[in-house]
């Protein structure tokens, strides 16, 4: 019961952040909401692992959080300087 409430509220959060990604007036809003979406996806995978008891999903959550952090940093650096690294 608790975990169903958790999954539904995470889905609503993802929908709200997707609205901000699509609507966002500037690129900063879009990058912020995209960062939030990756974190939300990792947390949702952890919650699904809790629901099913299938612990290998936790590896997927770790990979998702690493990729989300790297893509956010790369986007921020690209938008600041026009290149990711020299």
């Amino acid at each position, binding site marked *: 019961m608790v975990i169903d409430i958790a999954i539904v509220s995470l889905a609503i959060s993802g929908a709200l952040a997707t609205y901000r990604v699509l609507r966002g007036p500037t690129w900063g809003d879009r*990058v912020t*909401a995209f960062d939030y979406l990756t974190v939300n996806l990792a947390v949702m995978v952890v919650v699904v692992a809790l629901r099913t*008891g299938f612990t290998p999903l*936790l590896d997927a959550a770790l990979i998702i*959080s690493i990729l989300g952090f790297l893509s*956010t940093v790369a986007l921020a650096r690209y938008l600041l300087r026009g290149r990711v690294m020299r």
Partner: protein
Amino acid sequence: MTTARRLGRRLAALAALAGGGMAAAAGPERAPSALDGHPVAQALVLLGCVFLLAAAVGLVRFPDVYTRLHAATKLVTLGGLGIFAGAAIAFYPMDGTPRVLLIAAFFFLTAPLSGYMIARSAYLRGLPWYQEDGSVDDWQALGSEAQASAQES
């Protein structure tokens, strides 16, 4: 059949499916989750979900980039704390606890850092912020210096 009527029929089928899912979830033959029988873990997961939902509401409702960043990095760090701690407690008899703690440690290292990177590039590229009467940019004197150092490094 018109498009509107077809859409209405599909929505009715979807509502019936959701109702069936709810009834099945309330039934006795529901698969047990790892969270059953851990009231502390359930409370922590619910708290984390409340904070993540508040972060999403702030992301929609706040007026500019910087306030949205405030919502989407601080609240997300606290919400991730709740959910990962709850998962670590609930997975304790199984083999998932060290991996959940690894995810939590990585998350705490990187979530404020990504927020910092976004805020830095947004300020240095001069994105507009929400202003009222009496709003002051405290960093305006430092702006040119900061931009010069950002161009160098």
